[in-house]
């Protein structure tokens, strides 16, 4: 469970990026975090991971986010970064995939099993021993997702997971997200993907929650979306309701 209570944050004191934010995400929920560029989606994820500190209270599974709890909280959460180049830093995909599990003290055999299992599931076995600098942007994104899944976190945060993916990989990611039992928070402006994966949507504008509720209801609300610099999902555009 993730809980934000009156959380505010600003990079420089002039203007706050996130203002007095409160929401709760229950166990097993899949929540889409949508909003225009600069709305504060990435910032919220960084706050949740303790990478930046703001005011207010954040709790994860009842643990308040503070210096003491940060390691425990981070171990619960897997984060797929917006820029995979910044996530994949080992020479090969395989080495990147074992980095997390081995840091958390998993045995070699267990790590190996997880790596193969995740790669199979995502249809990426072919990537295992490839060099990170010799795979395409889309492949790297898939590999980045694989590194996080190999850690089998209790919750997963994904920052714009569908950018740079071709239709097949995008579909794979969508199907994977749908199959994962974990609590998931997915930031994106790919509203079609959000519609396909999330039951609930939080709509952000300038660091404020404009709407929070049933995904279908919000994603069908043309006026609301357009007022916040977004468009109806493509799959809904042909059928007015």
């Amino acid at each position, binding site marked *: 469970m993730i809980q934000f209570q009156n959380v505010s944050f600003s990079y420089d004191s002039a203007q706050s990026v996130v203002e007095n934010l409160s929401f709760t995400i229950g166990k097993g929920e899949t929540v889409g975090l949508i909003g225009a560029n600069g709305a504060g989606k990435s910032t919220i994820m960084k706050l949740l*991971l303790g*990478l930046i500190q703001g005011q207010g209270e954040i709790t994860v599974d009842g643990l308040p986010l503070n210096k003491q709890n940060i*390691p425990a909280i*981070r*171990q619960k*959460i897997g*984060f797929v*970064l917006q*820029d995979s*180049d*910044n*996530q994949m*830093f080992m*020479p*090969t995909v395989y*080495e990147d995939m074992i*980095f*997390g599990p*081995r*840091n*958390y003290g998993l045995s*070699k055999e267990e790590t190996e099993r997880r790596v193969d299992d995740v790669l199979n599931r995502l249809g990426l076995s072919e990537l295992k021993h490839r*060099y990170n*600098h*010799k795979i395409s942007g889309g492949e790297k994104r898939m590999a980045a997702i694989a*590194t996080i899944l190999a*850690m089998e976190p209790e919750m997963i945060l994904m920052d714009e997971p569908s950018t740079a993916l071709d239709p097949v990989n995008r579909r794979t990611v969508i199907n994977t997200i749908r199959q994962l039992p974990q609590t998931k928070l997915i930031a994106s402006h790919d509203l079609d993907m959000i519609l396909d994966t999330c039951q609930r949507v939080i709509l952000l504008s300038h660091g404020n929650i404009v709407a929070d509720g049933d995904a279908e209801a919000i994603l069908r609300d043309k006026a609301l979306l357009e007022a916040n610099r977004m468009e109806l999902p493509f799959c809904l555009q042909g059928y007015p309701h």
Partner: protein
Amino acid sequence: MDKLSQAQSELREMDALAASDSPVHRLHPLCKLLVTVCYIVTVVSFPKYDFTGLVVMVLYPILLFQAADIPVSTCFYKLRVVLPLVCAVGLVNPFLDPTPWMQLGNLTVTGGVVSMVTLMMKGIFSLMASFLLIATTPMDSLCAALRKLHVPSILTTLLLLTYRYIGVMLEQVSVMTEAYKLRAPGQKGIHISAWGSFLGQLLLRSMDRAQELYDSMLLRGFQGEFFYADVPPCKASGIVYTLVCVLAFAVARLVPVTSLLGNLFVG
């Protein structure tokens, strides 16, 4: 490919080179590290006029290039930037030391020339040995080996991160020069008026990326100590290799092999 993306891909190629397979690659990283250090110490310890003694030391890199299946040309190509610098170090010697050393026909070779050549050889040999170490041992295994020697983890982590961050920085430079070039067609390099902002941007961006990379490591449980690839226990082959090499270096250093061979043939 422009120079920068080339530099960047070369750095990565070193990773790939280090990850390939050969009898040398399979040796224990600690053995290779020790032998390399011994080699460099031996090479550097030759007296400054002992050109003939030093020549024998070339055998080690040459044999290793063969065994590791790495073309010598690759080494010189990768080291093309530093080699001239190393060679330049001795350039003033001929002027400082004009005492005649030996006579080649009409040509008088001065002590300065001999010490210059000796110094250059020392530099080149040491570079070749370091190159061979890095080209046959992945950075991670090397750091793991250092850890086994009880080098503090802060140093090995620093080494590894520096190695990775150089790549990040080069990548950033190449992205930025590409963006610049596309908007300044027909211009060679970056105009001096843009240097300031270019460097500033480069630093900021590299720092941002480095920060994010580091964050992503922290988020995956990194606690200041890299989990290095397992270093298997040292096999007999490694111990034999180390002993043979160290013994050979000692012989080459203490016994004037070249002159002995010379005497053998000349009488």
